[in-house]
């Protein structure tokens, strides 16, 4: 079987790896935030704002948001191909889910930009 490596199309192996790679980034972000809330007795606006003002935290947050989008896209593709067999309906549902997932990233990016 001639494997076609010339196209940009994703394959199952890449999706398998992406789901797990993004999961690691998101879990790291989750544990970091958990540590932040446990180690900060009272969270004030200044503390909260300064947390997200450092370049490193902006990159980390943006990476987490991108990971969320990719995780959602692949995860919901798996769910929808299992449960929504009608291609027309599935395409519409996938479109809206992916659009919302993208807007999470867009909102995050523009908020981070302004900090």
């Amino acid at each position: 079987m001639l494997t076609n490596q010339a196209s940009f199309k994703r394959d199952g192996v890449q999706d398998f790896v992406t789901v797990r790679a993004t999961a690691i980034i998101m879990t790291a972000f989750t544990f970091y935030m958990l540590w932040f809330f446990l180690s900060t007795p009272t969270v004030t606006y200044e503390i909260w704002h300064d947390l997200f003002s450092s370049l490193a935290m902006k990159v980390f947050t943006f990476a987490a948001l991108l990971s969320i989008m990719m995780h959602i896209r692949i995860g919901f593709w798996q769910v929808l191909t299992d449960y929504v067999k009608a291609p027309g309906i599935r395409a519409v549902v996938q479109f809206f889910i992916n659009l919302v997932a993208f807007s999470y990233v867009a909102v995050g990016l523009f908020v981070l930009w302004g900090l």
Partner: protein
Amino acid sequence: MFFALLFVIWAWAESVSSPDGFAFVQEQMSGVIGKIIAIGTISALTYHILGGLRHLVMDMGHWEELESGNNSAKIVIGLWIVLTIVVGVLLC
């Protein structure tokens, strides 16, 4: 969780952008609805992470028999219930 993210992203965007936004979100979070959404979201995320970690172990070839698969699933559910109660107590 996908829908819960609507609240999470909104609350984060509001609270980090301005002192008034922060005060508003803080006020919502102290209310009953805010707490329900928070505990619900954190509980769902906890279950998802525990299940995900179990899957990572399964990817490495463990827990693939009926008995081991069942037991690891029960452990995940047990841990999830305990952690949800802990989060509930912490947030209330």
